[in-house]
């Protein structure tokens, strides 16, 4: 029996009395997944990422969402936000907080949304991410149960961030979940959506999430994906974005945790004036493996994209970056910029990077650059002449390297959390406060 087939065994017994079209969709996903099988290194998109740990694993689907408030607090951020919480993929009413929503905003778990209006939601789900995108999206279609559905009406500016937490527990046996995230931002609306993947130490679950974000004319969406799962967790995500004219989408893809993390981020710029900004940071150590595949499709003239991904790798960690920009025929007056910089802290760490451009129009300004190297020894020296010891100097410079991405973060709580984590992950395990103190002293001097 193939690995793919084993994953689909749960299908029949688990899902009954669903609307027939939902059943049909599951079956289509299952058929596609079985036909594709798990990707191997022979697939160009998976050349550097080995998913055997997922394919050969045994993961059970989850029924309960038990997680005490104190344990949840330890994992999540204390944000003033509208909050949806999923525990191993199951919605937790107790931990969520979506009461008192202002008018024009709807934030609900997928099951509720489907119960109340399965036609409206079901039609939107899967519109951007069909079963053909990858074997994992097909698997998600076959097995997805729960997720977050966010709908923002025309012209509504959401006053607080929308905070979606996926908590992974340290279960006796590994679990899996296949969540969906759907964000529909109406014309001229504005919102910030955070997908936070957090886990207890020792959690070794498999999360396979598919997100779809649709921006109508003039909508502005900030999207954060913060990955802080345990060093055993397996995570595959794809985020699909569709943008109408004059809309602006900004992504922050911040990867700190997980044993194997793969994220695909795809944006279709479909009309004039649409703008996509991709910011990424990954800091991996031990035997962590992080793989970011990004794609921007410039489908219309006068669209803009800018991408900046930074990676720090230590120990035997491995990083993969594949950024692609496609400018379609007749998509003139495009600007597309892409940058990827990596810092290798260990000789056993490895980075595989491939920034791609595919351009079919001539009136374009496109560039990409990538660098991999070490800290600037002259900068280290300059700091040492100011009485800072070498370890501290290296810490400061590494933090500054990450800072270029973190400066763009508009939520201070997230910026601080990530910076603190970066400082703590440095070989010398700095305390952020110490570093900040030294940095301030330098600026005063």
């Amino acid at each position, binding site marked *: 029996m193939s690995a793919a087939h084993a994953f689909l065994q749960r299908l029949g017994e688990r899902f009954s009395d669903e609307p027939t079209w939902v059943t049909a969709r599951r079956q289509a996903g299952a058929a596609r997944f079985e036909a594709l099988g798990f990707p191997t290194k022979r697939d160009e998109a998976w050349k*550097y990422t080995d998913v055997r740990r997922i394919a050969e694993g045994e993961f059970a689907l989850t029924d309960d969402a038990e997680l005490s408030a104190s344990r949840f607090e330890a994992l999540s951020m204390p944000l003033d936000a509208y909050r949806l919480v999923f525990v191993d993929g199951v919605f937790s009413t107790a931990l969520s907080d979506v009461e008192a929503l202002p008018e024009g905003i709807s934030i609900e778990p997928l099951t509720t949304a489907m119960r109340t209006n399965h036609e409206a939601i079901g039609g939107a789900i899967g519109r951007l991410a069909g079963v053909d995108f990858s074997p994992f999206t097909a698997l998600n279609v076959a097995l997805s149960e729960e997720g977050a559905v966010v709908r923002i009406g025309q012209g509504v500016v959401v006053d607080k961030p929308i905070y979606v937490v996926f908590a992974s527990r340290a279960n006796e046996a590994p679990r899996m979940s296949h969540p969906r995230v759907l964000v529909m931002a109406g014309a001229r609306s504005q919102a910030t959506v955070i997908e936070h993947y957090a886990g207890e130490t020792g959690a070794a679950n498999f999360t396979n999430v598919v997100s779809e974000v649709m921006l109508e004319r003039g909508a502005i969406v900030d999207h954060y994906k913060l990955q802080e799962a345990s060093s055993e967790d397996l995570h595959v995500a794809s985020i699909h974005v569709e943008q109408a004219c004059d809309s602006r989408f900004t992504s922050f893809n911040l990867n700190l945790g997980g044993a194997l993390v793969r994220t695909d981020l795809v944006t279709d710029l479909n009309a004039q004036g649409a703008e996509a900004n991709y910011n990424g940071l990954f800091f991996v150590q031990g035997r962590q493996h992080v793989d970011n595949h990004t794609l921007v499709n410039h489908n219309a003239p006068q669209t803009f994209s800018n991408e900046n991904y930074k990676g720090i790798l230590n120990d035997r960690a491995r990083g993969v970056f594949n950024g692609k920009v496609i400018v379609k*025929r007749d998509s003139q007056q495009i600007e597309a910029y892409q940058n990827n910089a*990596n810092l290798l802290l260990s*000789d056993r760490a*490895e980075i*595989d*990077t491939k920034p791609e451009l595919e351009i079919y*129009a001539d009136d374009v300004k496109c560039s*990409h650059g990538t*660098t991999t190297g070490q800290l600037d020894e002259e900068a280290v020296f300059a700091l040492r002449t100011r009485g800072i010891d070498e370890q501290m100097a290296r810490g400061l410079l590494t933090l500054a390297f990450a800072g270029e991405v973190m400066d763009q973060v508009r939520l201070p709580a997230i910026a601080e959390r990530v910076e603190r984590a970066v400082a703590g992950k440095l070989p010398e395990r700095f305390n952020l406060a110490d570093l900040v103190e030294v940095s301030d002293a330098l600026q005063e001097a």
Partner: protein
Amino acid sequence: MASQEMEQLVRREYTQGFVTDIESDTVPPGLDEDTIAFISNKKGEPEWMLEWRLDAYHQWLKMKEPSWAHLDYPPIDYQAISYYSAPKKPEDRPQSLDEVDPKLLETYEKLGIPLHERAALAGVAVDAVFDSVSVTTTFKEKLAEAGVIFCSISEAIRDYPELVRQYLGSVVPKGDNYFAALNSAVFTDGSFVYVPEGVECPMELSTYFRINAANTGQFERTLIVCDKQAQVSYLEGCTAPQRDENQLHAAVVELVALEDAYIKYSTVQNWYPGDEDGKGGIYNFVTKRGDCRGDRSKISWTQVETGSAITWKYPSCVLRGKDSVGEFYSVAVTNGRQQADTGTKMIHVGEGTRSTIVSKGIAAGNSDQAYRGLVKVGPRAKGARNFTQCDSLLIGDRCGAHTFPYQEIGNSSATVEHEATTSKIGEDQLFYCQARGISEEDAVNMIVNGFCKDVFQELPMEFAVEAEALLNVTLEGAVG
């Protein structure tokens, strides 16, 4: 801009397309063990060579034609190709230019390469390959004096079997890839160069490859070995007669540089690109690889690619020796319906290895081109350094330019940089030139030549002149 006028200019005829009528000694189309035995026998090869070829053939049978390149062409029928073609009277080879078939000399005249004059004036020894057999070799004595061996690969297999056996396939193994395996099985000619220890080759070596008899593919095999502290500069240039049927070309070039050796390999490629519908052009699937085997050795590839309907070519360097250096300078120009997928691989194995990649792509008309490159830094390559610059210039809104740079870095002391830009010729630059009385045509040529300057200055003098002229012809009127 009168676009019709421009279109007329774009539709220039291929000026170097003509056919010389020389009877060929050709085998019927098709490929099997008998064909290979025929070739081997015809070349008077020893037994081991035939076995080598057959082994390659068996590997090839098990392989699949690669499809990953950004290329689109009808499937190739390998049984419809004739794998051997030689000018008449191969045993009775001419000893000097006077003995060469006058028709062949005429061909050179038409190409603007008066062989004797050119060779004498430029001090270049020419090993002219007309179809598959070397017809004439000049300056042999002068080279022999210096101890340099420069002959056709067939001669080398006969006269220097030990050298050939030692190095052939040591850089590009028989089963390296589909086209290399095919070449290993059926190669009919090409050049062999051996520069002994401490010798600086007294002149630039040059081979003009020609494709002539209809339906024959060209399967050249070139092997250049530079012993310790030796140096050589090798020039390869190509033109071809106009054809209706696609012609397959699958060459293999192997370079070996031992300690402190330096090999400079320059190519100007101007094969028939096909008519305006893309019909009839050359399919060019080439495997070129250099092995910096010795410490402090250096291999430099420079190429100007303006011809062929399909180009699939990635001249590469394996930087094995400590502190060895690899370079790749490339200008690729595509127009009409040409497609090019080209680039390089720099494999850093040894400590302190350095590589530079400068690639300039110019796409016009309905053409498509891709830069595809790999920079790999292994765990032992401490302090390895790479700089890559690849820029694309788009002329017209029906063409495409793509960049696929792979970087695999497994060493924290390595520094690897990649920069790429894609743009069109600046309106302001054109305006500036035109405001000073320079015609648009000339202005475009100036700007494009400036764009390619970094590569052209790496070419040997006479090649640089030729390359600039070639570029101007290729892009004639491509601006609108």
